[in-house]
């Protein structure tokens, strides 16, 4: 993506995650931050839990390889700078409330006039239109409204939100794929587009057969199944943590052989048509097998015998992982303010490689961009600062 110019007007997780990988692929991503900085600078985690806008782990992860320009879109000077940058960009990514950019003369109707081949990507909780367009939301309410929460957690308890900020992250991954697709379209056909990505819609599109089965057959399929979809498709406690297997009929015999338990290699357990009727007994046997082994032993057995099995890896495990080291998956940085950082560094391996630059300080590239590239006089910067434009 070298030579491709991206203006990142987004904050938080979704938009910045999408723009992060464009930057990793070599695009010149200019992140326009409000003078107070992206909201993720206030999110942490921080070294020793001491809040500081330049050491928020969320910001530092999501903004690698970008340049930072402070720009206040509520001032006319700020809008002029943003307009100049967007009109020359190939891709504009934003996550503002629906209508926000239009009100400031920077929406897609303006952009398509200024540059018909430009791609604008709006990524928001519910999209640009519809009755929820301005509905306030957080990760947990989005998780609920996308149908994902209803199927997650213990069937005998309340539904469970999964870890981290998955609604925002998955929307960001979708936004990245959508941006690349639309940009390719612009290259091939000479015409850009406006992508309207809704986190609710992208998450709801990944519900497996749950929604489709209901639509097709007119009934709920099943609700939450917890960690045990069935005895051979679940997570079990083991000696040093938790491990799991996910066995389809064709994988069963190898798993049974790996346990070395003769009973499992005979009917009724080795017959897919009878197995479910004896699921509780099978579960009890497998509890016993898992309980006597470590996570690594169980994973080694899965590898040796060739069945789908693994363990619940922690971030500590992943930082120490031979597999991750072999694939050079993590990037290490000794950040001058935040200290040592180990982050995922690529989405895939390919000929192009991925840049591994650091996230910018707030406004780090103001001078470089305004004076060096947009032709402002160095004296203008003080004035713009005074007007709270940058």
């Amino acid at each position, binding site marked *: 993506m070298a030579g491709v110019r991206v203006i990142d007007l987004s904050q938080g997780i979704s938009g910045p995650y999408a723009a992060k990988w464009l930057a990793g692929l070599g695009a010149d991503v200019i992140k326009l931050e409000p003078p107070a900085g992206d909201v993720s600078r206030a*999110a942490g985690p921080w070294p020793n839990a001491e809040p500081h806008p330049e050491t928020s782990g*969320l910001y530092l992860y999501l903004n690698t390889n970008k340049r930072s320009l402070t720009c206040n879109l509520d001032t006319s000077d700020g809008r002029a700078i943003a307009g100049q940058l967007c009109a020359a960009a190939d891709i504009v990514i934003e996550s503002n409330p629906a209508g926000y950019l239009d009100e400031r003369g920077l929406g897609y109707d303006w952009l398509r006039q200024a540059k018909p081949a430009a791609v604008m990507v709006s990524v928001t909780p519910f999209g640009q239109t519809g009755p929820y367009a301005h509905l306030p939301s957080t990760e947990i309410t989005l998780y609920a409204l996308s149908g994902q929460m209803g199927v997650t957690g213990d069937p005998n308890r309340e539904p*469970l939100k999964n*870890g981290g900020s998955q609604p925002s992250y998955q929307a960001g991954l979708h936004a990245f794929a959508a941006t690349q697709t639309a940009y390719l379209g612009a290259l091939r056909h000479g015409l850009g587009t406006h992508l309207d990505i809704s986190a609710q819609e992208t998450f709801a599109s990944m519900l*497996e057969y749950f929604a489709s089965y*209901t639509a097709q057959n007119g009934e709920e399929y099943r609700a939450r199944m917890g960690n045990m979809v*069935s005895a051979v498709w679940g997570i079990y406690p083991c000696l040093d943590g938790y491990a799991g297997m*996910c066995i*389809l009929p064709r994988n069963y015999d190898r798993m049974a052989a790996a346990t070395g338990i003769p009973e499992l290699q005979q009917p009724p357990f080795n017959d897919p048509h009878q197995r479910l009727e004896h699921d509780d007994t099978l579960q009890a046997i497998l509890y016993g097998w898992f309980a006597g082994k470590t996570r690594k032993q169980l994973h080694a057995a899965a590898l040796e015998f060739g069945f789908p099995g693994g363990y619940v890896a922690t971030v500590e495990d992943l930082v120490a992982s031979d597999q991750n080291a072999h694939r050079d998956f993590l990037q290490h940085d000794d950040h001058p303010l935040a200290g040592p950082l180990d*982050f995922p560094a690529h989405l895939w391996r390919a000929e192009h490689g991925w840049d591994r630059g650091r996230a910018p300080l707030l406004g780090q590239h103001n001078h470089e961009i305004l004076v060096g590239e947009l032709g402002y006089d160095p004296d203008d910067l003080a004035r713009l600062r005074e007007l709270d434009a940058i």
Partner: protein
Amino acid sequence: MADYATKPLDGIRVADLTMMWAGPYAAKLLADYGADVVKIEAPKQWDNIRTLFPPDQITEQWFNSGAYFQEFSRNKRGLSLDLKQPRGKELLGRLIAQSDVVIENYRTEVMDSLGLTEEWLRAQRPDLVIVSMAGFGKTGPESLSMGYGPIIEQMSGLASLSGYGDGIPFKSGISYGDPIAGIAAAAAAVTGLIRRHRTGQGMTVDLSQREIVTSLIGEAFALWSMNQRLQPHLGNRHEWMAPHNAYPCRGEDQWVAISVANDAQWAGLVAAMDDPAWAADEASADQASRWAHRDDLDERIAAWTQARTKEDVFAACRAHDVPCGPVWNSTDLLADEQLNARGYYEPIKDPDHAAWMTHGWVWRWTNSGPCILAAAPNFGQHTREILTELLGVDESELPALAQAGIIADAPVDPPIVSVL
């Protein structure tokens, strides 16, 4: 002249060797956005997704009718071809010569064992974009591990972050690693096409499904590398927001999620609850005290929600700008006001059911036409048309190909087994 109805991938052809979920999800996205995706299945090596969660009634066409299969293979064409027979492989070569992308999600060693090495693929078409998406990638000591989505979620670190707070990690309700890897694989295919457009060169993608899911928990890596701390299980609670939980509503297994991020939202929630006397208490005066008293507040709020339907709680919260989401089940989701207002669902028609609704555009864009132009292909439905129109096979050869089991119009011996 291009206009907004032109799809970004119009004119791109994808040879789709994927099975199950992650790969077909990626190829589905490419098909939705205009690519001619040719789904290739051998008569004896058909996509297992056909037999997972089969439709409610076993009919003559049941292997073409499952909701799972239909959702992931709409807008694709179906070609049956036995790649283990030389003639089948030779025909695949001709297809690849006319394709822009080959995508596969086999275990690392399978393509090579079929003789479909990178070298062979490139010999058919030098500037091909090849996307491999094995669970753990093509290289490294764990590259031979088998991973379906739930295993990927466990090995990625995500499952270690989810739990009620009693130490037990939890899986997501879906096979989370699958669609997540699928999105990234679609992005990889398109990135390869961008590269080819700009440089004339093809690209070979080695994507590890596990790495994609790991990329979605970046802040947990920051917490570890900065402070050597693992992110604790918070259940439905939040580090600083309170109240923040799932609350029971009237009816069986009915829930609503509510979260309050500031004083204004708290005032809104209090108003939504009709100003109960307890809300004037010091315990809820500011964010910090609400967080400190979150157990008490949760109990009070649950007493309010319990007497109401989740829809009524949602309406009351909406009226006062409080972040709230009823925990939709799949029936609710199909009726969701926002999704329907935006035309999210489109009809699809399989051989055994009346038309039913499934999601259309995942990435809404300036094109406003329908997304679903064709249901998933019946097994081998387009074999004849692809062989004769694209691959130069004479019509008269088709019976011999069928006789040899190289092509077929139904999968050979699919077992009727639901895994659950």
